[in-house]
Each structure stands twice: as structure tokens, then as C-alpha cells.
């Protein structure tokens, strides 16, 4: 994915680009390795990168860990999908009907900053503590990026494009769905990408704080209460979560490039 640069640089070859990515990742790992090996941070609490990755690979072979991972994955996927399905229409509604926006804004803005820590017991009380508990919290947190990006995306739509359709006698709903939505879709997609990360964080965090049964967060929690804490296990779990985030982001970016070819091609980016 090439970016619009300040000066027009020739797009680098895929090989160059991959080697840069590798260099970036390698530098990051090397930094951790260094900080740990030199004792800048106590290696007991921040083990070297090689150890973390080694442990992460070993965990792959552990069926219990795989169950943990799959459970988290499920909660994440359900939560993200529900959030997207709720947030996009809601964003369209709030972004296009000022009256509803005005009516709900105080409530929405009031509810938004309530942290999930405060909600954990209350949600548990109302809907129980199973999968639905995690999913509810995930939905609650990952709703917002999609909602806001939808609302702000709608505002950026070229009014002349909307007028064009209106002039053909299309009603407000058609204009919303046929012009405003596709026009703001790339920005909504960015919101979904943001939400995917938030959902991942919330899934694992909820598990760490209040999960039981299975889940990467539960795995991390138990590694943390061991004496001494199994930091390599914790960070190996973190490694897989982070890597999963990278993969999900890459997939979503690829999907965006496919779906919004018009958007990127127009900007002279190779597809």
C-alpha cells in the first residue's frame, strides 16, 4: 500500500517493501532483546524477545492453549460483527437525522466514558457471566469507532453528489444508501479496523480481569498468579494476540483495497 507522499517518490518494489517490513519487525524485536539482555529492564519481568517467541511457538503445540485462543477468537468475532451490524445503521441514522442526534447525544455521550471495569459486575448481574458477558463488553467498546467514523464520514460527502441523486427524484433514504454510504465507506472501514483492535483488547482484557473457563486472557491471568509469574507465558500470549491483530489488519486492508479500488486508484496508488 503506497501512500500519498509529500513528494512524488517512485513506488518501491514489493521485494523492497517486504524487506522494509521485516526490518521494522526485526528492529522492534532486537530492541526488546537488547533491553532485556543488558538488564535495562529486569529480564525476569521482561524476558528477551527470542525467549518470548520461542515460548510462543511452543505454546502452539499445547492443545489447552489452542482452546484458550479459539474461545477468545469466537468472542472477538461475534463481538466485532455485532458491533458493526449495530453501529453502521446507527451512525447513518444519527449522522443524517439531526433531531435524533440531538435527542440522543446527551445519553450517548454520558454512556460512552463508563469504563468496562465498572460495567463488568453490572453486566454480569444483568446478563450473566458466560460468553455473552464478554461479547456484550466487546460490543459496547467497539461500537464507538464505527459509529463515529460513520457519522464523520457522512459529513464529508460531497453535497453535489447528493444533489445529483436528489435531482433525479430519489428520496433521502436512497441518497443515504446510494451516495452517502458508498462515499463514506472507506472511512467507515477505517472505523471497523479500529474496532477490530478495540474488540481484541476488550476480549482479552475482560478475560484477564473477570474471565473464567477458557480464553487467552484467562491463560494470561493464570500465568500471572504463578509464583514466580510466568512472564514468558504472558508475553507469549501477548505475542499471539498482537500477531493476530497484525493479520486481521492486513486482511481488512486487503479487503478495503479490493472494495474501494476507485478510492485508491484515483489517488495513484497501485492496487
Amino acid at each position, binding site marked *: 500500500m503506497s501512500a500519498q507522499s509529500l513528494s512524488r517518490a517512485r513506488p518501491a518494489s514489493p521485494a523492497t517493501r517486504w524487506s522494509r517490513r521485516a526490518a521494522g519487525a526485526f528492529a522492534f524485536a532486537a530492541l526488546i532483546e537488547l533491553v532485556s539482555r543488558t538488564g535495562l529492564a529486569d529480564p525476569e519481568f521482561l524476558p528477551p524477545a527470542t525467549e518470548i517467541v520461542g515460548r510462543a511457538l511452543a505454546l502452539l503445540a499445547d492443545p489447552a492453549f489452542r482452546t484458550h485462543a479459539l474461545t477468545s477468537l469466537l468472542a472477538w468475532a461475534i463481538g466485532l460483527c455485532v458491533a458493526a451490524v449495530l453501529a453502521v445503521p446507527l451512525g447513518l441514522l444519527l449522522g443524517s437525522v439531526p433531531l435524533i442526534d440531538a435527542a440522543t447525544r446527551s445519553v450517548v455521550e454520558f454512556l460512552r466514558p463508563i469504563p468496562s471495569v465498572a460495567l463488568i459486575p453490572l453486566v454480569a448481574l444483568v446478563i450473566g457471566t458466560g460468553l455473552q458477558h464478554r461479547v456484550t463488553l466487546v460490543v459496547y467498546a467497539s461500537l464507538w469507532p464505527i459509529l463515529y467514523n460513520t457519522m464523520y464520514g457522512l459529513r464529508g460527502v460531497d453535497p453535489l453528489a447528493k444533489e445529483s441523486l436528489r435531482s433525479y427524484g430519489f428520496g433521502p433514504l436512497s441518497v443515504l444508501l446510494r451516495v452517502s454510504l458508498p462515499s463514506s465507506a472507506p472511512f467507515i472501514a477505517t472505523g471497523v479496523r479500529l474496532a477490530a483492535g478495540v474488540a481484541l*483488547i476488550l476480549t482479552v482484557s475482560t478475560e484477564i480481569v473477570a474471565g473464567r473457563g477458557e480464553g487467552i486472557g484467562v491463560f494470561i491471568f493464570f500465568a500471572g498468579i504463578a509464583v514466580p509469574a510466568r512472564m514468558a507465558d504472558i508475553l507469549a500470549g*501477548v505475542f499471539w494476540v498482537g500477531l493476530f491483530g497484525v493479520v486481521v489488519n492486513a486482511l481488512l486492508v486487503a479487503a478495503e483495497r479490493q472494495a474501494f479500488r476507485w478510492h485508491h486508484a484515483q489517488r495513484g496508488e497501485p492496487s
Partner: protein
Amino acid sequence: MRTAAFRALVLLGLVLVWEVGTRLAGNPFFPPPSTIVARMHAMWFSGPPATLFLTDAAVGNILPSLGRMALGFAGGALGGVVLGLAVGLSARVYDYLDGVLQFLRAIPPPALVTVFLVVFGFGLRMQVAFIMFSIVWPVLLNTADGARSVEPLHLETGQVFRLSRAERLFRVILPSALPKMFAGLRLALSLSLIVMVFSELLPGTTNGIGFQLTDAYSTFDLPAMWAGIVLLGVLGYLLNEVFLIVERRVLSWHHAARELVG
């Protein structure tokens, strides 16, 4: 003015429903708003006039919390804008950093508490770092998106007239990216309030709204817990209103150009 009255009316109606509902349910986990407000008053707002009616508990908890939040938000927003622009504008920076950033973005901060602790130690530094680390992402991604979707002809115009890099950045790219950046900042603002609460669960914290809130829950002082929740809601609402005023100022051209027609 009319929408303001309308909003107040809606809010009033909802509070009434809440009051009636909780009274009927009689569940100690869900105290009625009147109880909560009374508790808030007793806890925070019954002080002497000299301190603007704030109690010691308010001065000792609300103010430090807001300070942490403000620092974290400022740092995170700045970092997000700078990184977002870099990643959005330079293919090279994008290649080098994107993988690492996406990796970090997915990491649940609670799993890293120990690492934060060894790197930053107890207290403000760790808390602010924690908030920054959590809120930087919406700003970063949305800024990058904004920087990437500048109207191509605007860039070409800048190029033709040989604007310097700084001029292109500050006079062309930044203004174009601003509307999207603001979406990210608005997300980050409420997020910073949420993460502030989390940061006050970190080892060694001794004050703050989040600290009071969790302490209230662990001692089952439920009205006090709800007082914390409501305070956060009110703060979030107020901060958002301030944010919108700033946004309307900064983006007046955008709103006018987009809303005038039709």
C-alpha cells in the same frame, strides 16, 4: 436553543424512567439516581465555598484524575497525529512501522502492566504512559486515513506551485485531514476518560475517580460506585461539548461547505 431545550427534556424523561425503574426493582446493585446524586453531593460537592464547594475528597481525587487524563490525552493525541501523518504520507515510514504499530495496537494493556511497571515505575509516569498507549490508535489511524485521502488535485496544485514540504503539510494536507482527525480525537477523548479509570487500577495508585470507584466496589459501597460512574458520564458529556465547540471553530469551512447546499 430549541434543540438544547429538546435535549434537556429528553434527558429529564430518561432520568425519571431510571428513577422509577430502579425504585420498582429495589435491587441494591442499581440504586436510584436520587440516591446517587445525594451520595455525589455528600462525597464531593458539599465543601466550603472557598474551594468552590468541592470537598477534600473531590480535590484529592477528581483533580488528579483530570490532570492525568489531560496529560495522557495531549500526549496520545500529539503522538497519534505525528505518527498518523508519517505513516499516511510516507510509504517508507509505513513499510517500516506499520507492522509494529498494528502489533502494538492489538495488545491488551492489562497484560502489559508488569512491563509498564518495570519500565516506568509506580505513579504518574506509568499512568500517563498507559493512557497514551491506549488512546493513540484512533487518532493515528484516522489521521493516516485523512492524510491519504487528500484530494489528488490539491496535492498536484501544491506541487505545481512548488510549495515547500512544510507548506504542503500544514496548508494542504493537514487541513484536508483535519475532519477525519477530529473523528479520531473525539473517540480518543472519551477513551482517555475510560483509560484513566483503568490507569487508576494500576499498582500503587492512591487516588483518583477510578481508584474511588473500584475501592467502592470492592467494599460494596454501591451508591459510591454509581457516583463514580455518573461523574464519569457527566465529565464525558461536558468534555464532549467543549470538544464540539472547538471542532466547530476549527472546521467551520468544512461544515459550511458541506452543509450549505441541500
